[in-house]
């Protein structure tokens, strides 16, 4: 387990992300910024704040919970609690920035795109991620804006993004996957009648 990016590096990565996003969209025009729960929601908040300060005055904020759209639920160990999706926005015909913390297999983003299709038809959807973990993609999905790249993470390791709002500190850690006490595939309680 080790820290690969500290708070200074994370902060400048988020600043760079915001910079590039600001260059891609038009200030003064509507832009929807949608974060994927949980860290993506926080990141989306920070990006939206920076964008607001650069003349983006019509930012719509939303939060997407993709749990019900995942196709790998049985593989993610202890189930996350399903939480509400909050998209009370006009999506049709407007550009959207989709924000997540880590892009790895691409399955979360696939699920997010499926979920978004039930809410409307944006004119364009761009993807911003803080960390692009390369080498494990299972779907043809790439990010448009990347803060940090990780190339040499082992298959049995996890990339965890920690943010002040959620975890008290800004950092990116690579950690060994550990069996969770609340139930995994090998948990004998899973076989209860």
């Amino acid at each position, binding site marked *: 387990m080790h820290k690969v990016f500290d708070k200074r590096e994370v902060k400048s990565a988020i600043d760079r992300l915001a910079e590039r996003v600001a260059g891609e969209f038009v200030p003064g025009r509507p832009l929807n910024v949608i974060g994927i729960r*949980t860290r993506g929601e926080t990141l989306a908040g920070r990006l939206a704040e920076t964008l607001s300060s650069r003349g983006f005055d019509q930012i719509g904020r939303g939060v997407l*919970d993709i*749990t*019900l*759209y995942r196709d790998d*639920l*049985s593989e993610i160990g*202890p*189930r*996350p*609690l*399903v*939480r*509400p*999706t*909050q998209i009370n926005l006009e999506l049709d015909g407007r550009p959207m920035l989709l924000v997540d913390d880590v892009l790895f297999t691409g399955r979360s983003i696939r699920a997010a795109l*499926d*979920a978004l299709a*039930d*809410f409307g038809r944006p004119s364009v959807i761009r993807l911003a991620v803080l960390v692009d973990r390369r080498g494990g993609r299972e779907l043809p999905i790439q990010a448009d804006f990347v803060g940090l790249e990780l190339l040499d993470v082992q298959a049995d390791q996890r990339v965890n993004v920690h943010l002040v*709002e*959620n975890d008290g500190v800004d950092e990116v850690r690579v950690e060994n996957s550990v069996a*969770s006490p*609340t*139930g995994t*595939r090998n*948990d004998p*309680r*899973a*076989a*209860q*009648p």
Partner: protein
Amino acid sequence: MTESKAVWNRKHLLGLEELSAPEIGTILDTADSFKEVSTRSIKKVPALRGRVVVNAFWEDSTRTRTSFQLAAQRLSADTIDFSEKGSSVSKGETLIDTARNIEAMGTDVIVIRHPAAGSAHLLARSVRSCVINAGDGAHEHPTQGLLDLYTIRERFGKIEGLKVAIVGDIAHSRVARSNVWGLTKMGAQVILVGPATMVGKSFEAMGAKVTNDLDSIIGQVDVINMLRVQFERIKSSQFPSVREFTRMYGLTWDRFQRCKKDVFVMHPGPMNRGIEISSDIADGPQSGILTQVTNGLAVRMAVLYLVTQTQGA
């Protein structure tokens, strides 16, 4: 804000007696999220796509059956309706044989209502599918208990510390039993009220208070849950006359005036207007009766989702 994990590792929902408070909390929190789905223009999520849910009802039902069916459909499951009438049950097939035959067609969830207490447990031991108890005799009706808990929590923002009266034929009521288990686990105080023939002191062992005098407690409770007078039992010697029942245990306008100002009135339906509850209260602003039905949908979606996501389900 931290990521909460679901506290749930069960393949079946058979009753609230065996659930812990965190498990009940997980269902209620999950139901919160599913309530949002019903506000979307496309009221559907793909969580149970390709799964088959069977509604196997050996007893009449409108609300519960429709609610389970719609809940399954909103999760994109396929649904089959099976009822006693017009089936091979009338040819003498046993419960387990019938269920195994339905299951042989490839079902994932069986929602069962049956007049015999313990039938859902029996089924859960005999089939591979997830089993959800939709009412077994006078034993339990867990999803009704859960939707009552959900509705109370939504109204008051909490369950702990509330005083809840359940009034009527407690002894024959599975709704009452599930409510007592659920409410006491979540920290509410339950008072069961009815004629001595319909509410035994044995309920005190479940953690509830028992009284035969509605008027003595009416001013203290935050929630009053009026059970249906079960006319199918009305001829028995346990039941006083209808008029006497209404006079002693009905929620009349006069009694309502003596309740707490913000008392919350509930009823599991179907109502006998003018008998256990007066119409102007049932249709009034303090009635949660239709909200209970709306919430029932979200709660059943949550239960269907949770049992089917359990490993090995």
